[in-house]
């Protein structure tokens, strides 16, 4: 029988080989192919590519874990990150495709007839993409180190090399077709364990139904049983929220508008042949995303029930081996507060500070000792939320090849997103900064070379950030959505739907939205983290949801400034009329 490591090597190696073969077969030969894949990607393929582009290491590895630990409150991510596609499909994608240039700053720059607007858009795009990509590279390193015992640095370098090959050679064309393959790998890797576990615990192959239906011969569904366990152990009921409705609404809306405004997603809709194809393609994209996003809450419930059943009130020695394995990688910690040798899992942080720092010694039961102070509550267990997806197959006792599959899937998710983001960075530099601003006389061949070089440099910077992640990356990624919601989304939306919106209105709106949202976040997250509680928030809205308020300010300021300033030039208004009309065949 093959071990987990052998299986992981085999599956990861095979998937990497596949990506490289695709990359070599779809090299880009012009800027049109490098930026937008020659605009001949079929809607279905673009849907898959968009899904892989969108679903990052965070969606694949962390999301189910976040939901598992936050229950109903985790719904904001599920609705926010899928609902944004409705906004994208109805309000932005078809018109941007009709506009038919290369990048998002292209649209902002030409619609608002201003190089300043273009420049603001370029800076936003690069900032959002780099913070985001550092997280992906880190994800690659983490998967390598957990599953193949390669250290994080080497893991990141391997990941960089792969992305380098297909992003620099193939540009958007290479990325598109590798993303299609990566979607297949990641969805298979996510669904197989979920279906296995659903069959085992709920008696149905459909996880979406399994977590809430009553299995044959049982009295309670898994969800109802989990609610019961939660009440018994002193947690809030899994299906109930914290009750701060305004904040949940604000976060969900900010995530939706932010999703619709992310440049690496928007740019995918430039690659299809027509407006019709763009509309359909958005539907396919969300369908492919929904397969994972509706399964994730089921996985969250399976994993949480499994975890509680396996560890609660068990002695350290009788807990299965996965517990000890993940304890050895610092992701699980247990402190025997009452000295009875049994694990107690209750509400609240077990440790102070919350993250464990391990000592070299072992305790009486054989557990790793910690330098943290135990807290005064009854909880004895620390569990990192990322374990929920990574260890779920082991917890459920699934075969080795399924465990290995999860590693290949996590890598596919991280690499596909990283490549899409790097392309945004490279096109922003070679097209928006060089061709459209600094060196308008660049030939197509020179521009293509510049695009390749900037993609290469971007890969290296991303790799460096992955190996030496600045401490604020995780924070910033979460807020990239707020910033996109308060700047890009309103600017593009008004550019399409308000014909008389002018340069002055759009730029002042974007600046007010950005500055307000960024200051609120910086104040509560970096300057005064101790004040970051509901009593101090304006209107009870947390920094995560403040993008919604920033978006409203953006609209208001843009409207007011517009009414005092001159209409846009006639040719710009004509362009707006033009993008609203369907193509004539």
């Amino acid at each position, binding site marked *: 029988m093959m071990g987990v490591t052998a299986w992981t090597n085999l599956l990861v190696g095979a998937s990497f080989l596949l990506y490289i073969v695709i990359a070599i077969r779809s090299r880009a030969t012009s800027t049109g192919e490098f930026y937008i894949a020659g605009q001949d990607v079929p809607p279905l393929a673009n849907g898959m590519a968009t899904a892989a582009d969108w679903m990052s290491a965070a969606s694949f590895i962390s999301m189910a874990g976040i939901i598992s630990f936050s229950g109903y409150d985790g719904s904001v991510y599920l609705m926010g990150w899928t609902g944004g596609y409705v906004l994208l499909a109805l309000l932005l994608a078809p018109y941007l495709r009709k506009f038919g240039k290369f990048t998002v700053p292209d649209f902002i720059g030409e619609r608002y007839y201003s190089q300043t607007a273009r420049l603001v858009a370029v800076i936003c795009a690069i900032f959002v993409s780099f913070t985001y990509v550092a997280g992906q590279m880190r994800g690659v390193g983490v998967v390598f180190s957990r599953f193949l015992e390669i250290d994080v640095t080497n893991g990141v370098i391997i990941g960089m090399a792969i992305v380098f090959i297909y992003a620099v050679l193939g540009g958007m064309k290479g990325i598109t077709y590798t993303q299609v393959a990566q979607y297949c790998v990641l969805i298979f890797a996510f669904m197989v364990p979920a279906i296995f576990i659903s069959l085992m615990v709920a008696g149905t192959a459909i996880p979406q139904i399994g977590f809430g239906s009553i299995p044959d011969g049982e009295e309670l569904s898994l969800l109802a049983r989990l609610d019961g366990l939660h009440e018994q152990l002193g947690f809030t009921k899994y299906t109930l929220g914290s009750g701060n409705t305004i904040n949940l609404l604000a976060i969900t809306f900010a995530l939706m508008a932010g999703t619709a405004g992310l440049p690496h997603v928007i740019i995918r809709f430039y690659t299809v042949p027509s407006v019709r194809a763009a509309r359909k393609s958005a*539907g396919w994209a969300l369908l492919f995303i929904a397969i994972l996003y509706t399964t994730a809450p089921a996985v969250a419930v399976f994993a949480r029930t499994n975890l509680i059943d396996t560890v609660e009130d068990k002695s350290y020695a009788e807990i299965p081996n996965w517990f000890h394995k993940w304890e050895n990688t610092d992701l699980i910690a247990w402190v025997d507060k009452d000295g009875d040798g049994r694990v107690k899992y209750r509400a609240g942080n077990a440790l102070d500070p919350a993250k464990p720092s391990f000592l070299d010694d072992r305790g009486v039961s054989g557990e790793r000792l910690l330098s943290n102070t135990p807290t005064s509550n009854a909880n004895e267990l620390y569990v990192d939320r990322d374990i929920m997806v990574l260890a779920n197959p082991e917890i459920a006792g699934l075969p080795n090849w399924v465990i290995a599959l999860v590693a290949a899937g996590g890598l596919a998710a991280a690499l596909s997103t990283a490549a899409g983001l790097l392309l945004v960075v490279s096109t922003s530099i070679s097209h928006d900064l060089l061709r459209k601003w600094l060196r308008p006389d660049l030939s197509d061949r020179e521009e293509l070379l510049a695009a390749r070089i900037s993609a290469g440099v971007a890969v290296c910077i991303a790799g460096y950030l992955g190996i030496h992640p600045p401490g604020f990356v995780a924070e910033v990624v979460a807020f990239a959505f707020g910033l996109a919601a308060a700047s890009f989304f309103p600017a593009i939306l008004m550019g399409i739907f308000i014909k008389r919106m002018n340069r002055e209105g759009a730029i002042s709106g974007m600046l007010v939205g950005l500055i307000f949202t960024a200051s609120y976040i910086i104040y509560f997250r970096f300057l005064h983290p101790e004040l970051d509680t509901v009593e101090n928030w304006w209107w009870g809205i947390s920094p995560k949801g403040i993008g919604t308020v920033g978006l409203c300010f953006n609209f208001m300021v843009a409207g007011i400034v517009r009414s005092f300033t001159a209409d846009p030039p006639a040719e710009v208004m004509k362009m707006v009329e033009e993008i609203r009309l369907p193509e004539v065949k």
Partner: protein
Amino acid sequence: MSEDSDVAQQYWRKNLKIISLLLTIWAVVSLGFGIALAPWLNQYQLPGTEFPLGFWFAQQGSIYVFVILIFVYAWRMNRLDDEFSAGQDGR
């Protein structure tokens, strides 16, 4: 020329009508059923299961509706595009 822009305006108005209808549904299922009304809906269960209804909309139902909305929009607009180009024939 004026006839042309009349057709164009009609097309745009129809488009806005479809968008407003679909976005209303979008907001009702997610922000409405999934969040604002969820505590009240939770007293009911999705028939045949033990999903509290508000919870189900937040973690499952709204996502299914989103997918359907996009496909409905694509289908409806692509048909409108056909009508529009038919109206433009004979130029």
